């Protein structure tokens, strides 16, 4: 089976001179498309919007029935933080794990062996989707605010109150990235979702309790409690050492899993 390799035969040698590599924009477009072209993906996006709307509808109802509560635009806007905080991480998780559950990573990484670019495209797609969610939520908030103004007869107040737009966007981004990081770390939807909810909803009260009981925990708690560190982002009152708290706890709970997870995806044998 000796084949002559000395003479470059066009039949045995691929001519690559006319082939352009896959551009990042192309990959990004494909990753965005993958996020909504399945029922699971599409419904997740619909549910995120529906939950945001539901949260605000409740605010409208409460505002109409309770005399001492007068919601303004900022009130509606901020409810999004609670509803999407739960679901945006799930979106981030699904972006990554659907490829592994369904084993399409095999096809994806065969089409584009430069895995870093695929992962980066997914990450950017996630950020864009978080932005879309924020825009849609803002739209729904505006509608609800108008509706409340009409129904209450007092007119709508367009004050944002304490809510900060950059803070809101940053929180949404962190939520999506947290899911993405855990998904890359575990490469499994269920595990990533469970761990995300453990660390964002179970851990904070544990930290509070431990801090109340143990002095040394009290000292380090601000540095390791990522949820608490995100608190001052809400009204953008964050300053000085609080930024350091956010950076350090974020490094532990977001950047570290993201780094390990991405490293894992880049190295993993895709089956």
């Amino acid at each position: 089976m000796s084949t002559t390799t000395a003479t470059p035969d066009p039949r045995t040698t691929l001519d690559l001179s006319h082939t352009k590599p896959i551009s990042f924009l192309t990959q990004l477009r494909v990753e965005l498309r993958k996020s909504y072209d399945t029922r699971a993906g599409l419904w997740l996006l619909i549910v995120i919007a529906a939950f945001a709307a539901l949260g605000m509808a409740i605010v409208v109802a409460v505002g109409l029935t309770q005399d001492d509560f007068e919601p303004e635009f900022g009130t509606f806007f901020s409810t999004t933080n609670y509803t999407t905080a739960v679901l945006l991480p799930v979106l981030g998780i699904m972006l990554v794990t659907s490829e592994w559950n369904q084993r399409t990573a095999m096809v994806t990484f065969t089409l584009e062996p430069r895995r870093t670019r695929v992962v980066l495209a997914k990450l950017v797609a996630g950020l864009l989707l978080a932005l879309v969610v924020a825009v849609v939520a803002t739209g729904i908030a505006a509608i609800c605010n108008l509706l409340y103004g009409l129904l209450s007869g007092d007119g709508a107040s367009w004050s944002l109150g304490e809510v900060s737009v950059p803070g809101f966007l940053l929180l949404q981004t962190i939520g999506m990235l947290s899911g993405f990081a855990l998904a890359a770390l575990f490469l499994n939807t269920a595990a990533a979702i469970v761990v995300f909810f453990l660390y964002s909803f179970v851990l904070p009260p544990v930290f509070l309790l431990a801090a109340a009981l143990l002095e040394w925990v009290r000292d380090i708690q601000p540095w390791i409690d990522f949820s608490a560190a995100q608190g001052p982002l809400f009204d953008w009152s964050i300053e000085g050492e609080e930024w350091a708290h956010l950076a350090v706890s974020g490094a532990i709970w977001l950047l570290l899993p993201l780094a390990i997870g991405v490293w894992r995806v880049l190295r993993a044998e895709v089956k």
Partner: protein
Amino acid sequence: MIQLDHVTKRYGGFTAVDDVSFTARPGRVTGFLGPNGAGKTTSMRIMVGLTHPDQGSITIGGHRYHDIPNPARHVGTLLDASAQHAGRTGREVLRITAGTIGVGRDRVEEMLTLVGLDGSEAKRRVRNYSLGMRQRLGIANALLGDPSVLVLDEPANGLDPAGIHWMRGLLRSFASQGGTVLLSSHLLHEVEMIADDMVLIGRGKIVAQGTKAELLQTRGSFARAEQPDALAAALREAGVEAVTSGDQGVRAECDPVEIGRVAARAGVVLVELRPADGAGLEEMFLQLTAGDAREQVGASPAPQTDPSASTAGATR
């Protein structure tokens, strides 16, 4: 052209691919044959960069897969027909690939037609596809980028005989236009039907390779006799290598006429006498399979290829 050079891949103490070297040439369909777990899939995964070899190198058309820009435009790959998102429609699966590698939507429709998935089938979600339909979709996916090299892992698995026939025609015409095809199978008769060249792998090692004609070439003769043991003994006495095989059968390393003479001298009545058909490869393959595939154990080596039996034996 696909060239493997001393490729080795170990998992802990287990060597999945052991110093494998072979070449799949352009204009030929190369069958990569071996029992399940012999290292076919691992080798193919290494070819397209999904698995990193511990040693050795693989080039496709003179390049490492990783160095080929937009590789699907040159190398079409089908590694696992079931590795598709169950929630996507067949057409959407192809559109995702088309979007990634930069070919138009008309090419998607063209490929759907080529593999025989009609409009209503293309609209169905992959979850509702039979294995045969998934294979067709996978082949369409591999062909989308109009590649000159095809790497297909068990593409005939799940296809009915008509489907296998169709695939043979497709791959033949692909090869006749100068394309390189490497396809794996755990069924000898599939590879026999489709391939020009064969590479036989067992327990990670290449055990035979060559053209189909070379490997399936007649070696020795086959006879059936009233007293096969007596015939085999008489043949051995005459200095001919002979073994009993199957139902009253005797396989001997000589021309049929020689068996006839020995039988006449020994007074053994022959029931059948003919040149053996591709016995060497068949038996080598059965030996390889016997140790690994439980369903084969106990079955005496069949003297003839029985396509229906081997199709029924297709597991996975």
